[in-house]
């Protein structure tokens, strides 16, 4: 059962990483235009350099 000492913190940390990533996406307005973003990724406009 000693393995639990590693497994429980690992599972909590992985879950926490997911949570932090989600909070980041919300804070950086990534859900403002889901339809537009889904289509923008297919256009070639800013493939060579990022949009200023």
């Amino acid at each position, binding site marked *: *059962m000693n393995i*639990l000492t590693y497994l*429980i913190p690992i*599972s*909590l940390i992985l*879950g*926490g990483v*997911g*949570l932090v990533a*989600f*909070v980041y996406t*919300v804070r950086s307005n990534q859900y*403002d*235009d*889901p*339809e*537009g973003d889904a*289509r*923008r990724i*297919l*256009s070639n*406009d800013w493939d060579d350099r990022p949009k200023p």
Partner: protein
Amino acid sequence: MTATMRPSPSACPACAAAPAAEALAASALPRAQIALSLPTIHCSACISKIERALNADNRVNSARVNLTLKRASIDAAPDVTAEEMRALVEGLGYEAHELDQGTLNATANDRAGRDLLMRLAVAGFASMNVMLLSVSVWSGAEDATRDMFHWISAAITLPAIAFSGVPFFRNAWTALRNGRLNMDVPIVLAIVLAIFTSLWETMLSGHHAYFDAAMALTFFLLAGRYLDHRTRAIARSAAQELTALEVPRATRLLDGAEEVVNVAQLAVGDHILVRPGGRMPVDGEIVQGTSEIDRSLLTGETLPVFAGVGQAVSAGEVNLTGPLTIRATAVGAETSLHRMADLVAIAESGRSRYTSLADSAAKLYAPGVHILAGLSFMGWYLYTWDVRTALNIAAAVLIITCPCALGLAVPAVTTAASGRLFRRGMLIKHETALERLAQVDTVVFDKTGTLTTGAPQATNLETLPRPVVELALALAQGSSHPLAQSITRTARAAGIVAADLTDLTEVPGYGTKARYQNQEVRLGRASWTGAQGLSETATFLRIGEEPPVAITFADALRPGAAEAVQGLMDQGKRVILMSGDTTPAVEALATRLGIPQWMAEALPADKAARVAALTAEGAHVLMVGDGLNDTAALAGAHVSISPATALDAARVASDIVLLGNDLSPIAAACVTAQSATRRIRENFQIATIYNIIAVPLAVAGLCSPLIAALAMSLSSITVSLNALRLR
């Protein structure tokens, strides 16, 4: 910008200073924020085409297209006007409309929604982890391992609940302070009691801890709240966009110079120029010019009224033929448009009496749950004289009966139903509008602008001799008057060529005159052409000294009007037509659509009184109207619908807005509303069945955390699936 501010090693100090100064100047100047509505964009090519064109203009700092909202936001130099940007986008072949930035700002950042989403995310994260730990306890973890799992669960649950449960705590506290019980009181009690007993059990290394149940409960309930919030936020933002499309501007005359200002800046005594086709921004008195004004949105009458110097006009009326200068006598909240709000407020107080299905369920449910939990605590305490057992069982009862499915039952259905109706062009603004729409048995329609488009159509042109029509077309084609435009349209469609005229002049407020073969010809009002007025809408053509010829008009039906009326009557509803227009016009329309009951020449107060009388007879009235004269009736009716073309005041007063031009979705919406209400009732029944099965187990003390978790998740999932069955 920060890059240019850095001290440059160049030998020329001015080279470095100039861009820095420019950057400073640019940041100090107020930049113009322009928003455009682009209803026709649909693909990635549209996005890049519009963005590239906007960014190519060197006064534009940045432009971004939002495909979800079908909007472009432009950050540009202060001298750029929205009109230029609109023209630029229209030049690319896309429809564009200016949006009023002041109205839109409120929608830009939806703080409450974001807050709820964060809490939902934290609750989801915590409940997943706690559930994993609980699964190992259920599958046989014992002694020290079980205790450790319980302690870890507690360590996750306590901060997570403290953060994500805030909306419930706040609502429950407000309700308790006002001496009421709402859905949140049993929720908070269940969560708090579950955590308290679980902590106690954990300290005594007991077998049962309800951390997972408390966490899952919070998660499901937050999901319901979030759905509810989103549905409302979408409706609110769409309603605000409709308002933002009408940019409130007026042309003020200052020492003879024209100046375009915001309506809010106008003051009493200002002279304002209203061009033909423009709407009066304020109440006032005409000081210069003659014209005709269209008051259909205020009074429902279709006939334009003559307007001359000294006559009073009210905000919302449309100027038709000649430019008018008016002196403002009342602005802003004092205008007749806004005074109507008092009438609306009185009518609205009647509606607030409606209790939603969720509230009535909560009223039945909340005391029942508390009594049941209290009784089982008392019973077990008297039976065992052990507080710990009794408290454990009371917590189990509260958790099992907790309105998890009840919290999802209503929002899941309303989200599905409003989404469906939105796609058909109906915007549900009020949260209980669907439930109220389902109860409707009487439908009251307004005439002008609702069942009809408000644009006249010439009816007798084909019966007139051809030379007369040719003359009428020649006289009408230069004018912007709606009757003249209608003649032009109909005559051109019939392939008629205009006669040759000389000295064509428009006399604002009266008509047009010209010379034809040395005779004076006039097209215009009855009094001006020497004719007898008719009861229907008509204009008159006089050739020389001959008796004038009448050209009559009828209001064109709005698309889908006949289908909507027929559909509602097929559903067994009583349909009534109520209008401020003249009796013959209303009667003609009622006969045309087969509406048995009608009422003409109704004043705004008459309409509201009639609706109130119907309500007093026990009818549930659906009011469909667009004008200012309808607002009181709209607010007083059980539920109300207005088309998107309606005045802002009417849209605010109504629960549902029709986004398209078509009226036919109304009948279908009543059916959807009824099936949505049926689904909500079914959901309540499903939740009750789960309770009936699980509550006796809990009261008997046979309920384990596993059964609690199963009952809760299963009922929530069944309820959501049932909501998705809605058609």
